């Protein structure tokens, strides 16, 4: 039962990441892949640029893994890889892979994982459009907005 957590400038390798969680006692592997989309509210996206607060991001990812293992005791391996730097359209920015003996656990854990990731892990996305402008994006579910909601 291992957590593989990585923030990397390299292209993400789906097969390699998935094999990290493929264990003989597991019958289920669930995977989520976030890719760069070519459009945002009608504007053409040329590419994304990611930056991370690396050490803190890894810490927050580890917290998510701990929470997952508390909620789903049958989870075996967890792999969370996030790419930083430029990510072209159709390339992966994040791959999450989680294994368990039975599917329900890994399916639910991956769902939880990506949602928690978007809420707490300090990584930022700069979205470049084809008119050479850019915007810093904000996850609508990040803890920053959570605070505002809870104090209203």
């Amino acid at each position, binding site marked *: 039962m291992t957590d593989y957590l990585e923030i990397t400038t390299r292209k993400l390798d789906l097969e390699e990441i998935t094999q990290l969680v493929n264990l003989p006692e597991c019958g289920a592997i669930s995977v989520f892949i976030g890719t760069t989309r070519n459009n945002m509210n009608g504007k053409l996206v040329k590419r994304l640029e990611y930056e991370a*607060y690396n050490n*803190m991001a890894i810490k927050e990812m580890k917290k998510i893994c701990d929470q997952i293992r508390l909620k789903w005791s049958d989870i075996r391996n967890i792999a969370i890889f996030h790419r930083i730097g430029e990510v072209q359209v159709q390339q992966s920015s994040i791959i999450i892979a989680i294994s368990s003996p039975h599917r329900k656990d890994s399916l639910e854990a991956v769902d939880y994982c*990506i949602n928690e*990731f978007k809420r707490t892990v*300090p990584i*930022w*996305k700069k979205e470049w459009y084809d008119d050479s402008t850019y915007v810093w994006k*904000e996850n609508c579910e990040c803890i*920053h907005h959570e605070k*505002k909601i809870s104090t209203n």
Partner: protein
Amino acid sequence: MDSISIKVLFFGKARDLVGVGQKDVDILHSNLKANEFLEIIISKFPRLEEIKSSTKLSLNEEYVEMNDVLSLKSGDEIAVIPPISGG
């Protein structure tokens, strides 16, 4: 008391606004609220006012709440964290 030196990190839009990713900042009090610390930072980098209401801080790689009292020592690291967008 002597001032203490805090390593302040800026990410995302905060880094755009400040122009650098890191700055050592001297402060006079080792115990103060996080929102007081943010005010000190904003007084040094006024363009951060723009993201003040949506920014969070971390102390030594742990999120803190704005009402938390921080117990600081030289060499501590505080990050100015705008809304995140990874994943």
